[in-house]
């Protein structure tokens, strides 16, 4: 990578299924994401946004073309490299994907523990701090079953952020959030971008986020049809 672009996709194609049922989901994607920026992927459902996000975020094997992530080629990358890269990323999923047997705080600790085993008190303190930032300081020891959809989503955001990731990937992170929390979450992500140079790639339909995006990339039927640089 050049130091300004932590993510660069070139001639990226992707297919689902095999044989007769094989269907191309992405066509010749070329995309460079600038360091510290907030890039938003938009498009109708089925346009390949989530597929692209998971390819960039090491959650799917690259089949054809190239993805350069934090200076490493993902096409043909070893399992060990993928695991190491994933630790530098923060993922907020469409579904919250919290572990049902763990409390809010324990779920967030899992985002920290992946970097090695911290003393329990230190990990708890960091997790509590992040949960406070997303407005859940009074729900630390709640199990996911006892949290609302929006609260669960905020725990997932805290889990993604707690490890100080280089890049945050988010798939509809504010879909389940109310206006105020949604604004808080986006503000938090923006602030991290400013202060720590954290890069964010987000799939969203949320207009309130589009206003804050540095770049809006529109996909249709697996192709990038429009890329608007908001700061230009």
């Amino acid at each position: 990578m050049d130091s300004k672009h932590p993510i660069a996709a070139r001639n990226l194609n992707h297919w689902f299924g095999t044989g007769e049922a094989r269907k191309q989901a992405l066509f010749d994607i070329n995309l460079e994401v600038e360091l510290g920026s907030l890039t938003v992927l938009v498009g109708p459902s089925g346009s390949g946004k989530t597929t692209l996000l998971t390819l960039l975020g090491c959650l799917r094997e690259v089949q054809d073309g190239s993805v350069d992530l934090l200076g490493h080629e993902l096409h043909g990358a070893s399992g060990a490299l993928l695991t190491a890269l994933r630790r530098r990323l923060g993922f907020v999923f469409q579904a919250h994907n919290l572990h049902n047997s763990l409390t809010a705080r324990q779920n967030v600790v899992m985002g920290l523990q992946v970097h090695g085993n911290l003393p329990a008190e230190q990990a708890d303190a960091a997790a509590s701090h992040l949960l406070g930032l997303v407005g859940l300081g009074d729900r630390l020891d709640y199990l996911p079953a006892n949290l609302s959809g929006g609260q669960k989503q905020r725990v997932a955001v805290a889990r993604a952020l707690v490890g100080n990731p280089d890049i945050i990937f988010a798939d509809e992170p504010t879909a389940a959030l109310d206006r105020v929390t949604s604004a808080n979450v986006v503000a938090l992500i923006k602030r991290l971008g400013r202060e720590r140079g954290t890069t964010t790639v987000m799939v969203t339909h949320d207009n309130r986020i589009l206003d804050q995006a540095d770049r809006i990339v529109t996909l249709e039927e697996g192709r990038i049809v429009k890329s608007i640089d908001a700061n230009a």
Partner: protein
Amino acid sequence: MTGLLHALLGRLPIGWLQLTHSRARFAAALAGVAFANVLVFVQLGIMNSMATATLKPYEFFSADIMISASDANSMTDGGNVARQWMLQALADPDVEAGTGLFVGNVSWQRGAQSLGLTTYGIDPTESRFLSPDIAAKSSILQLQGAGLLDRFSRGLPRDEAASIRPQTPLSFEVSGKTLTLYDTFAGGGGFGGDGYMILSDQTYLTMFPKRSSSAPDHVLLQTRPHVDAAKVAERLRELVSDKTLRIRSYADAAQEDLSYQQTKRPTGIIFGFGVIIGILVGIVIVYQVLSTDVSDHMREYATFKAMGYGHSFFLGIVLEEALILGILGFIPGLAVGTGILTGMAAATTLPLEMTVGMAIAVFVGTVVACALSGAIATRRLAAADPADLF
């Protein structure tokens, strides 16, 4: 508990938290593991009891070498051995003493009940050929018609066995001849008969008039101290070189009897199969428990994988669960298994018992089976892209 495990593992005890999240499911998983343990314990107990019961009569006597007929696979079957072979064996400088051992079955009619006693006849003055316990009581056998009874004989009430003392002997008749029991010794019913009885060779011969003192069933030999019995037996085999005889060290004879019972006799083969089936069913149960748990948490594991956790982390969780289930399932499994074996032992007088070796083997086997099952179940996770598992 969570805090303790956290300190122990140096990470959140995910396995523990996962297992205890749903108490009903946890209880079902533990019941499954405990059941698998009980199954294997009972089958192992039955198989071990056959070994104990087979070797039991060898403990009554003290010998280094045994000469038997070539068709004698155990103490109780096969033809006779001419006494002259004993005399020939005694010519070997390393053989110190020899005696004949007679074997037969005596049926003791106790009202409507009949007790089949495996009966041994041996010269009571040669007490060096008797186990210390029996040797201490052997002098009374010199009385004509005297016998020592196995106090653990099947169908013999414990208090009645305890009342058989030299001061209060118990007499009964067998085919018109009177036997008087003066004392008891510790035997224990086997698979062949209800119990054991020991008589002098003279009493034995009056009970079995067709048998001759010159042809006992086996000849017991004792070697000089610090002599390898197997080597002497080898030498005697060459010296005698008679195809109608089996000359073996006493220990070999016992082991060959055991392997004959285990591999050639239907009961032994059935018990061996029982153990194999028990272990297989146990493994299937344990595999079900662990693989169900892994697939129930596949989404969550996929999330962890997406966060950058490697495969060793998941194997760690599975191993943690295997240990927890193995330990917590073992405790009720051991208790119930011991209970069942004790109950069966009381009902059959077979030496069915829980041994430390069995307990350790079953515990280690359970944990290994749990861990392997879990490791196999996590392979899908290792192969798939996280995005496909959400």
